């Protein structure tokens, strides 16, 4: 299933306006590795690089289901046209086999290819630039020596001239990236700093969870900014706030809950779904326990706002009661959803998530709930085992009005405050999304 990343037209216009001098936009930025010739990497460096590749979730964009690892090809639909993730295997012609360590570094942390072309910021270099030199070196070792070269060309991008001119992105970079490796905060302990490094840097959590500005820039890139990780709409999913917001964020979650979620994909409050499933299946769960605990610790430190969800009792708990009360949404919920999510929305955690109190039912943006109802969720594969229970797609069984009714019921019951859903929003998402795959999808790292 192609991931549709959205870059608005406004973004590109803004970029064009910001165009600077030709020298500036076509120069190769300096790299600390300039002039360095890499020796044959030691096995432990390659292994470390593989681990960094997990942190950075390279596989999710640069591999296709059933395709060779890192051979690229993932299609991303943008309002400008289609772009493709590139082949990053060490093939000299189609991949990055000809890259020096400095070339690799410039691509990763500056978004510039050896021939001076600028990468689209679908490549999260504004986050990757925080990665340390050591991690870059390890990652390079992994891609050069730990990945099989694949002589597969990447399909042509479908962005038309003049929008395909890349040099204005240099100006974008100048404005919207910080240009610096992560600097530990001396006020914080090592655990927090490690978590911040992973979340803000390689983990590039903000790519999905931070709202974007007019030029598609992430509104905040670190913990100092209240917009950072405060929730964003992307690809038909609402990536919720990872801050301590009472209802809309993870305010109710303990650090232990967070750790369970990151390591097992599920906890008492939620199960990963939507695009998060891919990040979890392919990368997140493979991080070490100390790293996942550091991420949980860091995330839990982000302040939030808003009152916590307060549970309210269920008003109707059987279809017959709902029918008598004239509540069609409740009736459909109880007939179709309650078997798994409970008559009172309490779910069967950690296997099947509750809907009472769930973040996606508190936020005004209903995209995630509509999307998961229409399309179901991909299989969560934890520790090699696909989940026992999967959310089926309902697009075949329910029309827009019925889905809107059910979700309106869910979002206004049991203390939830998300509000009603408009059938037009269901229709819109129906037209541009596909049902999730029934089969577990595991992308291969090597």
């Amino acid at each position: 299933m192609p991931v549709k990343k959205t870059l608005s037209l406004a973004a590109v216009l803004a970029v064009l306006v910001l165009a600077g001098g030709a020298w500036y936009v076509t120069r190769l930025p300096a790299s600390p590795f300039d002039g360095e010739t890499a020796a044959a990497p030691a096995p432990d460096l390659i292994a470390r690089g593989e681990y960094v590749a997990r942190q950075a979730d390279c596989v999710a964009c640069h591999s296709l289901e059933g395709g060779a690892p890192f051979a690229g090809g993932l299609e991303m639909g943008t309002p400008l046209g289609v772009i493709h993730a590139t082949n990053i295997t060490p093939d000299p012609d189609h991949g990055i086999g000809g890259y020096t360590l400095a070339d690799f570094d410039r691509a990763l942390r500056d978004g510039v290819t050896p021939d001076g072309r600028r990468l689209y910021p679908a490549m999260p270099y504004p986050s990757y630039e925080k990665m340390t030199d050591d991690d870059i070196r390890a990652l390079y070792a992994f891609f050069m020596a730990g990945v099989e070269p694949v002589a597969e060309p990447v399909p042509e991008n479908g962005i038309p001239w003049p929008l395909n001119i890349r040099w204005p992105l240099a100006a974008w970079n100048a404005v919207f990236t910080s240009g610096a490796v992560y600097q530990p905060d001396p006020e914080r302990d090592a655990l927090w700093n490690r978590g911040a490094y992973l979340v803000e840097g390689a983990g590039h959590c903000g790519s999905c969870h931070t709202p974007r500005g007019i030029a598609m820039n992430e509104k905040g890139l670190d913990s100092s900014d209240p917009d950072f990780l405060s929730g964003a709409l992307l690809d038909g999913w609402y990536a919720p706030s990872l801050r301590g917001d009472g209802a809309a964020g993870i305010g109710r979650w303990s650090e232990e809950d967070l750790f369970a979620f990151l390591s097992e994909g599920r906890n008492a409050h939620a199960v990963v779904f939507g695009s998060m499933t891919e990040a979890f299946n392919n990368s997140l769960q493979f991080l070490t326990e100390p790293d996942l605990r550091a991420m949980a610790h860091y995330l839990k430190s982000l302040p939030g706002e808003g009152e916590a969800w307060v549970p309210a009792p269920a008003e109707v708990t059987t279809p017959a009661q709902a029918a008598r009360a004239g509540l069609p949404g409740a009736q459909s919920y109880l007939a179709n959803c309650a078997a798994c999510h409970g008559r009172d929305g309490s779910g069967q955690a950690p296997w099947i998530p509750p809907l009472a109190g769930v973040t996606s039912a508190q936020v005004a943006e209903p995209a995630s709930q509509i999307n998961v109802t229409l399309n179901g969720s991909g299989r969560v594969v934890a520790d090699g085992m696909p989940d026992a229970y999967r959310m089926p797609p309902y697009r075949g069984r329910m029309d827009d009005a019925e889905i809107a009714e059910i979700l309106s019921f869910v979002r206004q019951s049991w203390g939830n405050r998300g509000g009603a859903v408009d059938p037009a929003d269901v229709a819109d998402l129906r037209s541009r999304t596909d049902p999730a795959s029934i089969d577990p999808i595991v992308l291969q790292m090597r």
Partner: protein
Amino acid sequence: MQLTVNGTPREIDAPGDTPLLWVLRDDLGLTGTKYGCGLAQCGACSVLVDGQVMRSCVTPVEMLEGAEITTIEAIESDPVGARVVEKWVEHQVPQCGYCQSGQVVAATALLKEIPEPTEEDIRATMVNLCRCGTYNYIRAAMTDLAGREGETL
């Protein structure tokens, strides 16, 4: 863990996330409860949990510690269930029969909740699928059970 099934405490050693359906069928040999979809879509696996209908294919067994489970095998020992079966026979509801364990259980649950369900109650509640198309007969039996004059098909 311990489960109470049809009035008898049973010791279960299945993993906690195993669906009740497969514990019933494989561990306890209660094969009257049927597998149709495993996805909460058909209702063939319906059982009573504390008198309410549940789809056992999507119920992890560990959620049921302490609950009273009644399967189709014991439905006639419930007075309401016995009446349902009697009417199912009288109205000749089943064809292939595969969905009917679930239908009888769903009907029993509704009548326990509402002894005289309206047509709307029945429509809202009796949502299990039947590929043989016995729906007219189910409706006739339910109307009868609700104490209303109905058609004998």
